[in-house]
Protein backbone atom coordinates (compact mmCIF):
# COMPACT_ATOMS: atom_id res chain seq x y z
CA UNK A 1 0.00 0.00 0.00
CA UNK A 2 2.84 2.31 0.97
CA UNK A 3 4.82 1.57 -2.23
CA UNK A 4 1.70 2.21 -4.31
CA UNK A 5 1.32 5.69 -2.75
CA UNK A 6 4.97 6.48 -3.57
CA UNK A 7 4.55 5.49 -7.24
CA UNK A 8 3.39 8.94 -8.49
CA UNK A 9 6.27 10.55 -6.60
CA UNK A 10 8.80 8.21 -8.23
CA UNK A 11 7.26 8.95 -11.62
CA UNK A 12 7.54 12.69 -11.03
CA UNK A 13 11.13 12.44 -9.85
CA UNK A 14 12.21 10.36 -12.87
CA UNK A 15 10.39 12.74 -15.20
CA UNK A 16 12.10 15.76 -13.58
CA UNK A 17 15.49 14.07 -13.78
CA UNK A 18 15.12 13.29 -17.48
CA UNK A 19 13.87 16.81 -18.08
CA UNK A 20 16.83 18.34 -16.22
CA UNK A 21 19.24 16.34 -18.38
CA UNK A 22 17.52 17.58 -21.55
CA UNK A 23 17.38 21.13 -20.15
CA UNK A 24 21.12 21.09 -19.44
CA UNK A 25 21.76 20.19 -23.10
CA UNK A 26 19.39 22.94 -24.25
CA UNK A 27 21.03 25.59 -22.04
CA UNK A 28 24.43 24.57 -23.39
CA UNK A 29 23.11 24.91 -26.95
CA UNK A 30 21.70 28.38 -26.13
CA UNK A 31 25.01 29.55 -24.70
CA UNK A 32 26.94 28.19 -27.70
CA UNK A 33 24.49 29.87 -30.11
CA UNK A 34 24.91 33.16 -28.26
CA UNK A 35 28.71 32.93 -28.41
CA UNK A 36 28.68 32.10 -32.13
CA UNK A 37 26.27 34.96 -32.81
CA UNK A 38 28.42 37.45 -30.85
CA UNK A 39 31.53 36.32 -32.72
CA UNK A 40 29.76 36.58 -36.08
CA UNK A 41 28.61 40.13 -35.27
CA UNK A 42 32.14 41.05 -34.19
CA UNK A 43 33.58 39.45 -37.34
CA UNK A 44 31.09 41.35 -39.49
CA UNK A 45 32.15 44.63 -37.93
CA UNK A 46 35.83 43.68 -38.02
CA UNK A 47 35.53 43.03 -41.75
CA UNK A 48 34.07 46.50 -42.29
CA UNK A 49 36.90 48.11 -40.30
CA UNK A 50 39.48 46.03 -42.21
CA UNK A 51 37.90 47.07 -45.51
CA UNK A 52 38.04 50.74 -44.43
CA UNK A 53 41.72 50.37 -43.50
CA UNK A 54 42.52 48.70 -46.86
CA UNK A 55 40.75 51.45 -48.80
CA UNK A 56 42.62 54.10 -46.81
CA UNK A 57 45.96 52.43 -47.60
CA UNK A 58 45.03 52.22 -51.29
CA UNK A 59 44.06 55.92 -51.38
CA UNK A 60 47.15 57.02 -49.43
CA UNK A 61 49.61 54.99 -51.48
CA UNK A 62 51.77 53.86 -48.56
CA UNK A 63 51.34 52.48 -45.05
CA UNK A 64 52.80 55.44 -43.13
CA UNK A 65 50.46 57.99 -44.76
CA UNK A 66 47.51 55.66 -44.25
CA UNK A 67 48.46 55.19 -40.60
CA UNK A 68 48.41 58.97 -40.14
CA UNK A 69 44.95 59.20 -41.72
CA UNK A 70 43.69 56.30 -39.59
CA UNK A 71 45.49 57.64 -36.48
CA UNK A 72 47.10 54.23 -36.01
CA UNK A 73 50.05 53.86 -33.64
CA UNK A 74 53.31 52.55 -35.15
CA UNK A 75 55.22 49.70 -33.49
CA UNK A 76 58.09 48.63 -35.72
CA UNK A 77 56.74 47.93 -39.19
CA UNK A 78 53.24 47.32 -37.88
CA UNK A 79 50.53 49.94 -37.30
CA UNK A 80 47.97 49.33 -34.59
CA UNK A 81 44.53 50.76 -34.04
CA UNK A 82 42.53 49.93 -30.89
CA UNK A 83 38.74 49.93 -30.54
CA UNK A 84 36.20 49.81 -27.73
CA UNK A 85 33.47 47.15 -27.46
CA UNK A 86 31.27 49.43 -29.65
CA UNK A 87 34.06 49.76 -32.24
CA UNK A 88 34.87 53.34 -31.34
CA UNK A 89 38.62 54.05 -31.78
CA UNK A 90 40.62 54.32 -28.58
CA UNK A 91 39.54 51.32 -26.52
CA UNK A 92 41.12 48.06 -25.43
CA UNK A 93 38.73 45.41 -26.76
CA UNK A 94 39.60 44.98 -30.44
CA UNK A 95 42.91 45.58 -32.18
CA UNK A 96 43.43 46.22 -35.91
CA UNK A 97 46.97 45.64 -37.14
CA UNK A 98 48.36 46.54 -40.54
CA UNK A 99 51.73 45.02 -41.34
CA UNK A 100 53.72 45.12 -44.60
CA UNK A 101 54.40 41.94 -46.55
CA UNK A 102 57.00 41.24 -49.20
CA UNK A 103 55.79 41.56 -52.73
CA UNK A 104 57.60 39.69 -55.52
CA UNK A 105 56.26 42.11 -58.16
CA UNK A 106 58.01 45.50 -58.54
CA UNK A 107 55.64 48.46 -58.16
CA UNK A 108 53.09 46.34 -56.33
CA UNK A 109 52.99 46.82 -52.57
CA UNK A 110 51.53 44.23 -50.26
CA UNK A 111 50.26 44.27 -46.66
CA UNK A 112 48.13 42.31 -44.25
CA UNK A 113 45.27 43.53 -42.05
CA UNK A 114 44.39 41.53 -38.98
CA UNK A 115 41.66 42.24 -36.45
CA UNK A 116 41.96 40.60 -33.04
CA UNK A 117 39.58 40.30 -30.13
CA UNK A 118 41.89 41.07 -27.21
CA UNK A 119 39.63 39.31 -24.70
CA UNK A 120 39.59 36.01 -26.62
CA UNK A 121 42.46 33.59 -27.02
CA UNK A 122 41.21 32.13 -30.30
CA UNK A 123 42.02 32.96 -33.92
CA UNK A 124 41.91 36.54 -35.29
CA UNK A 125 38.44 37.76 -36.26
CA UNK A 126 39.68 38.73 -39.71
CA UNK A 127 42.93 38.30 -41.65
CA UNK A 128 43.14 39.87 -45.10
CA UNK A 129 46.20 40.21 -47.32
CA UNK A 130 45.95 42.84 -50.01
CA UNK A 131 48.03 44.48 -52.75
CA UNK A 132 47.99 47.92 -54.30
CA UNK A 133 49.82 49.93 -56.90
CA UNK A 134 51.22 53.34 -56.11
CA UNK A 135 49.32 56.00 -58.03
CA UNK A 136 49.79 59.71 -58.64
CA UNK A 137 46.91 62.10 -59.11
CA UNK A 138 45.91 63.04 -62.65
CA UNK A 139 44.91 66.53 -61.45
Amino acid at each position, binding site marked *: *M*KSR*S*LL*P*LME*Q*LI*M*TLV*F*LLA*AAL*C*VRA*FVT*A*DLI*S*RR*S*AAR*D*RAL*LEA*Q*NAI*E*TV*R*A*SGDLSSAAK*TLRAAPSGDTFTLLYTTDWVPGGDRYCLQISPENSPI*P*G*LSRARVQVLDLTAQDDPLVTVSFSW*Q*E*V*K*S*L*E
Partner: protein
Amino acid sequence: MTAKLSTRKGAGWAVVLAFVFFALSALAVLLLGARSYRALVARDEDAFSRRSAVQYIAAKVRHGDMLHAVTVEEFSPQHPIPTLLLRETIEGEPYLTRIYCYDGALRELFTWAGEEVAPQDGQAVLEAAGLALSLEDNLLTCAVTDPTGQVSTLTLSLRTGGEVTAP
Protein backbone atom coordinates in the same frame (compact mmCIF):
# COMPACT_ATOMS: atom_id res chain seq x y z
CA MET B 1 -4.31 4.28 10.84
CA THR B 2 -3.24 7.88 11.58
CA ALA B 3 0.40 7.09 10.68
CA LYS B 4 -0.67 5.56 7.33
CA LEU B 5 -2.80 8.65 6.58
CA SER B 6 0.06 11.00 7.42
CA THR B 7 2.51 9.02 5.13
CA ARG B 8 0.01 9.21 2.27
CA LYS B 9 -0.47 12.94 2.88
CA GLY B 10 3.32 13.48 2.92
CA ALA B 11 3.72 11.56 -0.34
CA GLY B 12 0.94 13.65 -1.87
CA TRP B 13 2.70 16.90 -0.95
CA ALA B 14 6.01 15.56 -2.30
CA VAL B 15 4.32 14.80 -5.64
CA VAL B 16 2.87 18.31 -5.75
CA LEU B 17 6.28 19.81 -4.90
CA ALA B 18 8.02 17.68 -7.55
CA PHE B 19 5.43 18.78 -10.11
CA VAL B 20 5.84 22.47 -9.16
CA PHE B 21 9.63 22.10 -9.49
CA PHE B 22 9.20 20.43 -12.88
CA ALA B 23 6.83 23.15 -14.09
CA LEU B 24 9.12 25.97 -12.91
CA SER B 25 12.16 24.33 -14.53
CA ALA B 26 10.28 23.93 -17.82
CA LEU B 27 9.20 27.58 -17.68
CA ALA B 28 12.74 28.75 -16.91
CA VAL B 29 14.23 26.80 -19.84
CA LEU B 30 11.48 28.08 -22.13
CA LEU B 31 12.08 31.71 -21.10
CA LEU B 32 15.84 31.29 -21.45
CA GLY B 33 15.39 29.87 -24.95
CA ALA B 34 13.05 32.69 -25.96
CA ARG B 35 15.45 35.31 -24.62
CA SER B 36 18.38 33.71 -26.37
CA TYR B 37 16.47 33.52 -29.68
CA ARG B 38 15.31 37.15 -29.37
CA ALA B 39 18.92 38.28 -28.79
CA LEU B 40 20.14 36.30 -31.83
CA VAL B 41 17.46 37.76 -34.10
CA ALA B 42 18.11 41.32 -32.85
CA ARG B 43 21.85 40.93 -33.41
CA ASP B 44 21.28 39.49 -36.91
CA GLU B 45 18.89 42.29 -37.87
CA ASP B 46 21.32 44.89 -36.56
CA ALA B 47 24.20 43.40 -38.56
CA PHE B 48 22.02 43.12 -41.67
CA SER B 49 20.81 46.74 -41.62
CA ARG B 50 24.30 48.01 -40.81
CA ARG B 51 25.92 46.00 -43.61
CA SER B 52 23.17 46.64 -46.18
CA ALA B 53 23.35 50.43 -45.92
CA VAL B 54 27.12 50.73 -46.35
CA GLN B 55 27.39 47.95 -48.94
CA TYR B 56 24.59 49.54 -50.97
CA ILE B 57 26.57 52.81 -51.11
CA ALA B 58 29.80 50.91 -51.88
CA ALA B 59 28.15 49.05 -54.78
CA LYS B 60 26.72 52.27 -56.22
CA VAL B 61 30.06 54.09 -56.01
CA ARG B 62 32.00 51.19 -57.52
CA HIS B 63 29.46 51.02 -60.35
CA GLY B 64 29.69 54.75 -61.11
CA ASP B 65 33.40 55.30 -60.37
CA MET B 66 34.49 57.25 -63.46
CA LEU B 67 36.68 60.35 -63.73
CA HIS B 68 34.97 63.29 -61.95
CA ALA B 69 31.74 61.27 -61.77
CA VAL B 70 31.59 60.89 -57.97
CA THR B 71 31.14 64.05 -55.93
CA VAL B 72 29.68 65.11 -52.59
CA GLU B 73 27.37 68.12 -52.74
CA GLU B 74 24.19 69.51 -51.22
CA PHE B 75 20.90 68.25 -52.63
CA SER B 76 19.94 71.77 -53.73
CA PRO B 77 20.37 75.36 -52.41
CA GLN B 78 16.86 75.10 -50.92
CA HIS B 79 17.59 71.67 -49.36
CA PRO B 80 21.17 71.60 -48.02
CA ILE B 81 21.13 67.82 -47.45
CA PRO B 82 24.51 66.06 -47.88
CA THR B 83 24.17 64.14 -51.14
CA LEU B 84 26.36 61.69 -52.98
CA LEU B 85 26.20 62.54 -56.67
CA LEU B 86 27.03 60.00 -59.37
CA ARG B 87 27.22 61.47 -62.88
CA GLU B 88 26.89 59.52 -66.10
CA THR B 89 26.20 60.25 -69.74
CA ILE B 90 23.59 58.26 -71.59
CA GLU B 91 23.25 58.86 -75.35
CA GLY B 92 24.99 62.22 -74.98
CA GLU B 93 22.71 63.45 -72.19
CA PRO B 94 23.97 63.97 -68.61
CA TYR B 95 22.17 62.07 -65.86
CA LEU B 96 22.55 62.16 -62.09
CA THR B 97 22.03 59.58 -59.40
CA ARG B 98 21.57 61.25 -56.02
CA ILE B 99 21.98 59.23 -52.82
CA TYR B 100 20.95 61.02 -49.65
CA CYS B 101 19.07 60.63 -46.38
CA TYR B 102 15.67 62.25 -46.02
CA ASP B 103 12.63 61.65 -43.83
CA GLY B 104 14.08 58.60 -42.03
CA ALA B 105 15.27 56.78 -45.14
CA LEU B 106 18.29 56.44 -47.34
CA ARG B 107 17.03 57.48 -50.76
CA GLU B 108 18.09 57.18 -54.36
CA LEU B 109 17.00 59.51 -57.15
CA PHE B 110 18.00 59.07 -60.78
CA THR B 111 17.12 61.95 -63.13
CA TRP B 112 18.29 63.95 -66.11
CA ALA B 113 20.85 66.49 -64.79
CA GLY B 114 18.74 69.55 -65.64
CA GLU B 115 15.59 68.27 -63.94
CA GLU B 116 14.31 70.20 -60.88
CA VAL B 117 13.73 67.72 -58.08
CA ALA B 118 12.76 67.69 -54.41
CA PRO B 119 14.15 65.36 -51.70
CA GLN B 120 10.82 63.56 -51.31
CA ASP B 121 10.98 62.48 -54.99
CA GLY B 122 13.67 59.90 -54.21
CA GLN B 123 12.98 56.20 -53.79
CA ALA B 124 13.39 55.09 -50.16
CA VAL B 125 15.90 52.23 -50.13
CA LEU B 126 16.60 51.59 -46.44
CA GLU B 127 15.68 53.03 -43.08
CA ALA B 128 18.33 55.48 -41.86
CA ALA B 129 18.48 58.40 -39.47
CA GLY B 130 21.36 60.24 -41.12
CA LEU B 131 24.10 60.23 -43.73
CA ALA B 132 27.36 62.17 -43.40
CA LEU B 133 29.64 62.34 -46.44
CA SER B 134 33.12 63.62 -47.16
CA LEU B 135 35.43 63.33 -50.17
CA GLU B 136 39.06 64.26 -49.66
CA ASP B 137 42.11 63.17 -51.67
CA ASN B 138 40.10 60.55 -53.57
CA LEU B 139 38.95 59.02 -50.27
CA LEU B 140 35.19 58.93 -49.86
CA THR B 141 33.86 58.53 -46.31
CA CYS B 142 30.19 57.78 -45.65
CA ALA B 143 28.80 57.55 -42.12
CA VAL B 144 25.31 56.05 -42.03
CA THR B 145 23.29 56.43 -38.83
CA ASP B 146 20.71 53.67 -38.45
CA PRO B 147 17.30 54.20 -36.77
CA THR B 148 18.71 53.05 -33.40
CA GLY B 149 21.40 55.74 -33.57
CA GLN B 150 24.36 53.46 -34.33
CA VAL B 151 26.81 54.81 -36.87
CA SER B 152 28.51 52.67 -39.53
CA THR B 153 31.38 54.29 -41.37
CA LEU B 154 32.50 53.21 -44.82
CA THR B 155 35.69 54.41 -46.47
CA LEU B 156 36.16 54.01 -50.22
CA SER B 157 39.17 54.79 -52.32
CA LEU B 158 38.02 56.03 -55.71
CA ARG B 159 39.82 54.08 -58.41
CA THR B 160 39.69 56.84 -61.02
CA GLY B 161 41.54 60.15 -60.90
CA GLY B 162 45.01 58.66 -60.59
CA GLU B 163 47.56 56.87 -62.70
CA VAL B 164 49.99 54.13 -61.78
CA THR B 165 53.55 55.30 -61.25
CA ALA B 166 56.19 53.33 -63.12
CA PRO B 167 58.03 50.82 -60.91
